[in-house]
């Protein structure tokens, strides 16, 4: 029986025994005819047994033409409490197919307990071997077979059909008992799978040939959105002892609701806080703000991943006592305590926007983060409890405008998180510029930032010295590269959550150009474009990702050098285009010129079809909002 849903297949059928397609040994390779590195063969076979356990086989054969691509052939396998390496061998062949080396598991470097940089501990062991050879080309062939435990049923490996080097042939084979249900979602063009349906088991095989290399670009959206791949998801599974029905978002949310609720215990200390808050009879939004204030100031982000990436949150009381946890721990603590104050607070699962975007019509556990939404009638307040520097309602940009699965026992659903507006992400710069003739000019600047700019700077500055802080401001495009810091007028401060201020002075190497009788003063020390906006759009293939809308609000006083007066001042002008706009005005005084300028961009992503219009928009901004000032030399 097969049901076809939109873009998905729900499969159930009869059986056969899966044997992962296997190309033994090395032969003289067709790819020797080419001079570029390729993945000659990438085969994944996943065979699910009747008891839910699985055998997962992977065979890759990579032709490495030169050293530049050797990292693509790095051997990397892993093991954790659910996935056990049963068989592994890897071979290195020369161009003629002669075996140069072979490795078994014990020959690989082993790292256990390490995860990504933000993880304190992860109960996974990685084994790897970087290929080092004197001459190229070589072929690296790796075969690994994992035994997957029967309680690891929530996830199926995806078919990644595009890599950093071309893929000649990729095959993905899935074998299941007939009563096993899963869904499929393809990204890119794939032929329908070959299927073999027998009495008790079914097998499907997807294949792809000659997939081109994927070449990423700076400031692009997550590459996963553009790579050819096929996702698989079981429609029901057991996770951390909880049963999940993943056939719809609503049922998936309901399963999580049960799991999260099991962790909503509260200690007496938490109850005391809750009772204090309740006794004040605050409106819900104020109550949320007060509790966030209390919790964010005493909590730290620490990820300890045990089990299925630690899918099950730690009890709320434990997180509260330790004052640390990861996203799901902290969100659970928030949700438990807010629920205690009668605020309708629910955890929400998201895939952060820097990593991808879940497909709205494809229910799957494709999330990497947990945040929180508080509902008050028609109003919602979103909180990311890992953003200790954020105001309630002020999500970090990676959480903005992405799908969130709101956890609820009955009415959970996939909703879109809000996007901040340009005027919420504000950089206010009050600058004094002292141009000089024949040497670097000086300047002083008072900076205040709010929103994404504010809390990111707030979070990023502690532990840095003043020069390092200055470097951070440059990396954000808040001051230009060619300025130097000579002193701090007001150390970095954070008057409130999502707010950051810093005042300093320094030198600007590019401030003025003297020509006979004139001095051109450059205001570019206070840039109006973020680094992403200055990206070369010629021949760009992917959208430009600007992260979040923003506004620069500048007041600038130019102190005239001795012997100079203001020339013809640029006109006061305003400009509004398709992507944003701004305005600028000047006024001359006895010894100074003052400028007031606003520039905003209300998009966070520019699609390729918009590049031409966006370039024109930037040119207009540059022409209107970033003029040179002309000072005339007194005769």
């Amino acid at each position: 029986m097969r049901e076809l849903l939109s873009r998905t297949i729900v499969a159930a059928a009869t059986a056969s025994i899966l044997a992962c397609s296997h190309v033994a040994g090395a032969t003289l390779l067709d790819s020797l005819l080419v001079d570029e590195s390729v993945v000659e063969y990438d085969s994944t076979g996943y065979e699910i047994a009747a008891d839910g356990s699985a055998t997962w086989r992977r065979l890759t054969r990579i032709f490495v033409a030169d050293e530049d691509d050797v990292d693509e052939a790095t051997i990397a396998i892993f093991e954790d409490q659910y996935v056990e390496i049963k068989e592994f061998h890897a071979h290195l062949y020369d161009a003629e197919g002669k075996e140069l080396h072979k490795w078994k598991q014990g020959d690989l470097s082993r790292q256990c307990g390490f995860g990504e940089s933000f993880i304190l501990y992860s109960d996974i062991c990685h084994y790897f071997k970087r290929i080092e050879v004197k001459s190229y080309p070589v072929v690296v062939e790796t075969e690994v077979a994992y035994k997957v435990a029967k309680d690891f049923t929530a996830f199926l490996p995806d078919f990644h059909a595009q890599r950093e080097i071309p893929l000649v042939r990729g095959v993905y084979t899935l074998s299941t008992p007939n009563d096993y249900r899963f869904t499929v979602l393809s990204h890119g063009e794939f032929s329908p799978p070959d299927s073999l349906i027998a009495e008790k088991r079914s097998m499907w095989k997807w294949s792809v040939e000659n997939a081109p290399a994927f070449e990423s670009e700076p400031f692009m959206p997550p590459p996963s959105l553009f790579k050819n791949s096929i996702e698989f998801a079981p429609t029901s599974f057991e996770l951390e002892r909880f049963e999940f029905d993943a056939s719809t978002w609503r049922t998936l949310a309901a399963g999580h609701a049960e799991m999260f609720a099991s962790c909503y215990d509260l200690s007496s200390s938490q109850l005391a806080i809750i009772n204090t808050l309740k006794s004040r009879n605050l409106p819900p939004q104020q109550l949320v703000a007060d509790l966030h204030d209390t919790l964010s100031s005493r909590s730290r982000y620490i990820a300890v991943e045990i089990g299925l990436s630690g899918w099950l949150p730690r009890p709320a009381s434990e997180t509260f006592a330790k004052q640390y946890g990861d996203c799901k721990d902290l969100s659970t603590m928030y949700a438990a305590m807010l629920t205690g104050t009668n605020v309708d607070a629910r955890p929400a699962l998201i895939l952060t926007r820097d990593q991808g975007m879940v497909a709205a019509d494809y229910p799957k556990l494709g999330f990497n983060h947990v945040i929180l939404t508080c509902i008050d009638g028609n109003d919602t307040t979103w909180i990311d409890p890992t953003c200790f520097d954020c105001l309630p309602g002020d999500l970090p940009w990676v959480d903005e405008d992405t799908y969130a699965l709101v956890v609820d026992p009955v009415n959970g659903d996939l909703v879109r998180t809000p996007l901040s507006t340009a005027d919420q992400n504000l950089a206010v710069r009050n600058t004094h510029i002292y141009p000089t003739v024949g040497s670097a000019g000086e300047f002083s600047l008072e900076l205040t930032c709010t929103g994404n700019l504010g809390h990111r700077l707030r979070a990023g500055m502690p532990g840095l010295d003043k020069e390092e802080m200055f470097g951070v401001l440059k990396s954000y495009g808040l001051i230009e590269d060619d300025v130097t810091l000579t002193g701090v007028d007001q150390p970095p401060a954070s008057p409130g959550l999502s707010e950051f201020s810093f005042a300093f002075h320094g030198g600007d190497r590019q401030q003025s150009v003297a020509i006979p009788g004139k001095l051109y003063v450059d205001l570019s020390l206070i840039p109006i474009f973020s680094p992403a906006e200055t990206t070369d759009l010629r021949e760009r293939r992917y959208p430009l990702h600007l992260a979040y809308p923003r506004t620069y609000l500048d007041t600038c006083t130019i102190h005239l050098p001795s012997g100079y007066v203001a020339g013809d001042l640029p006109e006061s002008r305003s400009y509004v285009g398709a992507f944003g706009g701004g305005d600028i005005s000047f006024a001359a005084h006895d010894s100074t010129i003052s400028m007031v300028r606003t520039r905003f961009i209300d998009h966070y992503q520019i699609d390729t079809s918009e590049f031409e219009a966006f370039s024109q928009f930037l040119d207009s901004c540059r022409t209107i909002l970033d003029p040179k000032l002309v000072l005339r030399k007194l005769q």
Partner: protein
Amino acid sequence: MRCSTIAKNWPKHWPKHWMRFWFACFLALTVSAFAEDKREFGEVTEAEMAYTLPEYYAEEGAAVLFETGSVEIPQPYGSNKIHFKFHRRCKVFNVSGADDAINVKIYLADGEKIRDLKAQTISADGTRKIEVKGDDIHEQSLDDYKILTFTFPAVEAGCFVEYKYEIRHERFLNLTPWYFQNDLYTKESSFSVIIHNGFEYFVVRRNVPLENEEPIVDTEYIWGEKCPKYTWVLHDLRPTKREPFRPAVRDYSPELNFQLTKFADRYNVLKFDRDWAKIGETFEDYLERNIDNRGDIEDAAEEALAQFAGGSSLDSAKYLYRFVRDNFKTSEESDYYYFDITGTKDLLEERVGTPSGKNLLLVEMMKAAGFSALPLLIGTRDHCMFSPNIIHTGQFNHVLCLVSVEDQYYFLDTQDKYAAFAFLPPECMAAGGLIIDGENSQIAQLTHPDRKTSISANARLRIDDSGAAVCSTHVTVCGHLLSTYRELLDGEIDEESIRDVLLENAENLKFDLNMATLNDYSVDDSVTIDLVLDLPQFCERIEDNAIFEPLLFAPRENPFKKSERMYPVDFRFKFSSYTTTDVTVGDGLKIVTLPEQVRENVNGIQFNRSTFGGGSSMRTVSQLIVGKEFFGVGEYPTLRETFEKVAQAGLERSAAEYVGSTSAE
């Protein structure tokens, strides 16, 4: 009797975390005492509660209030092991800047056992203590290493985090070294040692202030014996910092190391290395373990020289050097061991090996070819400076090949394809080392031949009336700078690499690469690159002037961003940078503003820029000469200021007026 225990602890590898033993003046300790940490776990004092950081460090997130290490070395009988006890208490001032205090990693080598690990957070007022539970202490592993990792709970500004543990091991030969300095400001760091009867250890003190060199001696009764206890205490140690062109941190940080020199009981007297010859003998055994096929090496040398066209002995030696340098790929050394030597068998089979492994192979191939060749141990420039008075292997982390040809000695290193015969890579230009020659091992002073090191760029810029430009440039990179520019020379020359390497990240400069030609490393120790760049938006038009930056290839970044410096500046080598730029403009333009003349001549650095011309053409010649490789902390402000002027000069702009305009008047 466990003498074998002592002997077997001479390691096959040289793990970094445990072999950082040091040298300096020697103090023989032959007494016994019991090292004792007198600070009670969890007892925060009033003074600690009131403690604040010195004003200069006020922005640090945390401080080490104290850390104590103490070692007791029992007699090596039965199951006796060395006990190393550690106790540290930190005060947290700002949670988000206190990672080094609140996230802990404890490294354990193979054979080390940890016990009595206790950790807790103490509230700011000292009344509340929250223990780190066993479930929250996690074990990581990196091959043979184990790492215990944990974080403190309930951390808030003002609180204290404290932990202690004991490690037991059998590494009698070299005790765990003691480093007084941390990444955090350290109010007090102390180390005590007690050595039971029969042992003699060298105490090696490095960079310990003179007034603290001699330990405090107490007398205590341990197990009925009256024992002196030696304790070193340092106070108010500043946090270590990363800085560009930093020399080896160990040359400036206080450390204590202990090396066993003798063990005696009523049956045995065992002596351990005390002079360079004995250290060399021992090390020769270690190196020998990596040479496992002399017959194959002889065959390889013979095979290599079969291709040699003939010539003098020196030509033959040069040929062998190039053979190993160019026919065996250099792999990275492990971060975890001082010496990571690929065995000669693996090297010959796989043609890939670590730098020390390749150099050891070269020694053997030279010998097979009839040359007198020996391994030479050095410490690389980021490891530590060689001191002949400190008889300790901890000074070394690298093997060179020393070869004698026609009565001349040459120091060779095969790791860098941009090192011609007898030129060592900058990191290997040590002042001295240890020649490994069995009982004849001896220290040697290394002299390094002058190596012309420079980068020059001769650029011709043609600016047309639209403000676009074409730039033809001939770049020559010589000497040690070849390694610095490896990213460009070894990879693909494209817009990105040119921008990153030659244009010093001139982010806003838009250009297309029209042509690039790289000429391979030549016998004159240089590489040349010819480039043609199209710069469609080279000039910015303001009124009737075209504004441009003529010095595309001049240095434009000051590497010294910080106003203060903790360590001296070690460039590793002297170098110079020359840039000549010839600009011509189209008929519709006239150059009206030229870069200013600049002359700087401070101790060790010269910078000159001269500009000529005007009208239809101009020439700018820029010359930076760094005439010494080492600048003390006291010289840093001048050095920084000079480099700032160099950067400013590189960014200076010129103006060309559109002919016929009157706006300039």
